[in-house]
C-alpha cells in the first residue's frame, strides 16, 4: 500500500508548512487562513486514521465555527496592529527560537528512544474499536463509547460551555 504512505508524507509536509505559515505571516488574516488550512489537513489525517466522526467535527467546529470567530475578531482589530516592528525586549526572539529547538530535540528523543512495543496486539477482538466499527458503524461506535464510558465528562462540558457563554457576555458588555 504505497498510496497511503505517499499521501501521509504529502499531508505531513503540507501540515508542517501551513503551521509554519501561522506563526510566520506578518498579517494576522493570512495567519488565520493558514490555520484553517492546517485544520483541514489535520481532518484528512483523522480520515486516514479511521476517525470519521472526529474529522467531520474538526471541519465543522474548528475550521467552521472557531475560525470564523477568529477571522471576525482579526478583521475587527486589524487596522491598528500593523506595526510589530518595534521590539521592546529584543533578546526574546533569539531565546524563543533556542527554546523551540530544545523542545523539538526533547520530543524527538522521547519519540525515538522509548521502546516502541507493537501496540496493536488486540486486533479486532470484541470490545475493541475496530470490532465495534466493523459491526455497528463509525459514528455508532463513537456514540456508544461516549455515552457509556464518558457520560459524566460529557455532561461537565455543557457546564463549561455555559460558563464560557456567561464569561463572553460579561466581557462583551459595554461597561
Amino acid at each position, binding site marked *: 500500500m504505497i498510496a497511503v*504512505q505517499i499521501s501521509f508524507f504529502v499531508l505531513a509536509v503540507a501540515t508542517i508548512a501551513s503551521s509554519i505559515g501561522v506563526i510566520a505571516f506578518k498579517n494576522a488574516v493570512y*495567519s*488565520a487562513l493558514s490555520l484553517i488550512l492546517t485544520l483541514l489537513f*489535520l481532518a484528512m489525517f*483523522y480520515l486516514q*486514521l479511521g476517525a470519521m466522526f472526529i474529522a467531520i467535527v474538526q471541519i465543522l*467546529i474548528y475550521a467552521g465555527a472557531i475560525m470564523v470567530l*477568529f477571522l471576525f475578531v482579526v478583521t475587527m482589530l486589524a487596522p491598528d496592529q500593523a506595526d510589530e516592528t518595534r521590539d521592546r525586549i529584543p533578546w526574546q526572539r533569539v531565546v524563543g527560537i533556542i527554546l523551540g529547538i530544545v523542545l523539538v530535540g526533547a520530543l524527538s528523543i522521547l519519540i525515538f528512544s522509548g521502546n516502541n512495543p507493537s501496540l496493536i496486539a488486540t486486533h479486532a477482538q470484541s470490545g475493541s474499536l475496530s470490532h465495534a466499527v466493523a459491526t455497528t458503524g463509525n459514528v455508532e461506535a463513537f456514540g456508544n463509547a461516549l455515552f457509556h464510558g464518558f457520560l459524566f*465528562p460529557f455532561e461537565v462540558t455543557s457546564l463549561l460551555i455555559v460558563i464560557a457563554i456567561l464569561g463572553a457576555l460579561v466581557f462583551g458588555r459595554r461597561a
Partner: protein
Amino acid sequence: MPHPSDLMPLSAYLTVSALMFAIGALGVLIRRNPLIIFMSIELMLNAVNLSFVAFSTFLDSADGQMFVFIVLTVAAAEVVVGLAIIVSIFRTRRNIDVDDMNVLRG
C-alpha cells in the same frame, strides 16, 4: 480495508504532532500579537489531538477520540473567552501588543 497501523508506524504520526506542537510553542514565544499567540495555542491543542487520535487508532480503543472531543469543547470555550478578553483590552487601550500589557488594571 487494512488497518492504518499496518501501513504507517505510530512514530510517524507522533513526529508530525511533535513538530506542530513545537511550532505552536515557538509562535507563543516569538510573536507579540495576542491573536497570533491564540492561533499558536490552537496549533498546540491540535497537535495533541492528532497524537490522541493516532494513539486511539493504534491501541484500538475509542478513549482517545473521547479526549479529542473534550479538548475540542475546551478549545471552543477558551477561544470565546480569550477573544472577548482581547476585544475588551482593545477597547480600553488602542494597541494590542502583549509586551505593553504589564499592569493588572484597565
